[in-house]
């Protein structure tokens, strides 16, 4: 249980950031822009978000689901253990980059990025990397402050 005073009964990331309402507003706008930009398929974003949660072993982030993306139990199990075979070529390229960003970003190669660029273009690649950074931050915040969601 988090030691922070929250603005709601459940210690959540939004509740944490609401300690600074202007910060919450801008953080939510930034996060929403990733999903609304349309530069990365929503399903791909969701796969990558869940993989980042699995890498961090962040259960609060893992338990959240995007309402517009349906993933099968087999897909979720594969994501959890880092098996990308069930996914298509574009998703595998994105997941390969996702795998390295939280703790091994220096191991990212030119070819890793080139694979993503080939699928998404420059703008899509930049959008994906932005998304991965935010997913990583969300997990770190939730774990550092022991948040429930």
């Amino acid at each position, binding site marked *: 249980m988090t030691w922070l005073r929250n603005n709601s009964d459940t210690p959540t990331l939004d509740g944490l950031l609401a300690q600074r309402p202007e910060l919450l507003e801008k953080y939510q706008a930034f996060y929403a822009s990733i999903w609304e930009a349309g530069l990365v398929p929503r399903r791909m974003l969701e796969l990558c978000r869940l993989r980042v949660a699995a890498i961090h072993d962040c259960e609060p982030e893992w338990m959240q689901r995007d309402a517009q993306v349906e993933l099968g139990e087999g897909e979720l199990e594969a994501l959890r253990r880092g098996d990308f075979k069930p996914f298509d070529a574009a998703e595998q390229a994105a997941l390969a980059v996702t795998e390295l960003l939280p703790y091994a970003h220096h191991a990212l190669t030119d070819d890793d990025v080139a694979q993503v660029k080939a699928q998404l273009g*420059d703008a899509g690649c930049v959008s994906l990397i932005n998304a991965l950074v935010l997913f990583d931050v969300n997990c770190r915040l939730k774990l550092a402050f022991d948040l429930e969601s």
Partner: protein
Amino acid sequence: MSTEPRIASAVAGEAASFPTVLAHTPDTTGKFFDLYAEFWQRGVAPLTVREMTRMRNARVTDCAF
């Protein structure tokens, strides 16, 4: 680690750099800098603490930028 930027500049005539690569996603980038400005211009923690932790984070992640 690459010695060449992996993404081309989105700004004609300008070399690839942090802002010109982010310019590929102008809406997201604008909101990122709004958030970043909030941290730096209206943060509650002392500026020296914020700068110190920013620099330490750069060392930990080995980010020369």
